[in-house]
């Protein structure tokens, strides 16, 4: 699913600009996901210093996807990108069990942020192509997602590498942007 088709689905919203924020720990697969969405080559990705952004524009309507580096050192900068976020996509490396606690903590802190209050959140349980990946249901339980009551949320298993599951996740993103704006 490309950025342009997402943009078309979002057309029913009155806003001129939709802003999607990609966050998560380093090595989660945010940049691979972003490049998949933009139909770009994913074979020579390097760790993100700072951020990447992809924009598509059509008939005066704009979609911006921000991919912010996940390294601990730059997490304090995440908050600079919260404003006017329409949907938060939180990417988890489902095979990196050692860091489930850390990623859960970061997510919990994000959900407490005032500037992100009420913002729908999609959690991508990424790297399902790896044999050691934990299933989405296990991650949902570990992160206590069912206790989220103040916003729309969804967990979607996917592989940014193969593209599997991305379309389903992005469909949910479009739906929740549209319902939020009405």
């Amino acid at each position, binding site marked *: 699913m490309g950025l342009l088709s997402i943009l078309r689905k979002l057309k029913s919203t009155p806003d001129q600009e939709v802003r999607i924020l990609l966050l998560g720990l*380093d*090595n989660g697969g945010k940049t691979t996901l972003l490049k998949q969405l933009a139909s770009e080559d*994913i*074979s*020579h*990705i*390097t*760790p993100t*210093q*700072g*951020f*990447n952004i992809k924009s598509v524009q059509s008939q005066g309507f704009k979609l911006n996807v921000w991919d912010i580096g*996940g*390294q*601990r*050192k*730059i997490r304090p*900068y995440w908050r*600079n990108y919260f404003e006017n976020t329409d949907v938060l996509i939180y990417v988890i490396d489902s095979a990196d069990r050692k860091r489930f606690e850390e990623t859960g903590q970061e997510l919990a802190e994000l959900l407490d942020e005032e500037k992100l209050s009420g913002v729908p959140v999609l959690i991508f349980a990424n790297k399902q192509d790896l044999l050691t990946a934990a299933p989405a249901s296990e991650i949902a339980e570990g992160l206590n997602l069912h206790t989220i009551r103040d916003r729309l949320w969804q967990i979607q298993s996917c592989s940014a590498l193969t593209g599997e599951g991305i379309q389903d996740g992005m469909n949910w993103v479009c739906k929740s942007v549209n319902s939020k704006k009405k």
Partner: protein
Amino acid sequence: MRRVRARMLEFLWQHFYTSFLRFWLKWFIRQVTRKCELQRICSGYKQGAPRTVQAEYSLESSKNKVLRAALNVEENMVEECAEAIMMEKKVVSQKDPTFKLNLQVCLLQISGYKRLYVSVEDLRKQMFDSEKAEHENMLLKLWDLLVPSVKLESRITKQWGDIGFQGDDPKTDFRGMGMLGLTNLVFFSENYTDVARQVLSHSNHPKLGYSYAIVGINLTEMAYSLLKSGALKPHFYNTVPQSPKLEHFHQLYCYLAYEFDKFWIEEKPESIMEFNRYREKFHDQVKKQLEEPDVTLYLRVDCK
């Protein structure tokens, strides 16, 4: 409409030139000068990019199989290949004694660039593998070269952050650059130890700091994509009068690592979040330099 017509005319002219006019023009000049195009290139352009770029274009546009095959000649077959071209073009050694050697250098450079890309690509595709002692040792060597005064407490440790890896195990940071990224980092620290340590200390600056290793891996990607696109041809043609080797690619990386650090400090970015904007600016600068016919991107400091 006018623009479309102009482009059509241009296209027709191009077609007419390459398929017809170029041949007769070359034939005519050959009759007058009594030299083939390659001879004129070898004697008329100075050694390096000016000459080799012209020779490459000439071989690529040739309809002769022997000449076109010369673009991909094996390194040990270059002399035979030059002789075959001279036979084909009826060049007499005695009348143009320097031609053969000059042509051989061009052929080594042209085919060598393609070979270099293959070896760089092989190294890039090798993923960092903790099971391999060779990979692990290289990683530990990088630490010892950069921070000799401090011992690593363990293989998995937060200390890796001090040389600019993201987490406590660098293995996930090499990603799409694989062993090419690590080899470049080690080469720089080993051959320009003082410079590398100086760059590392800049990267730990409280305000203008950046992640040394991550940025290094990112610059490896820059060097790799410049090589892949062919943009580095003039640099290698000017600096290596033979078939370029991996070592020459690592040298180019050293140049980028040193120059980027200088650039970053001079530009004084607001924070590390601005990295990609300045990376692009630096990238554009390098590409512009590579458009100069006499470009040489060589790190000129004393070794070690």
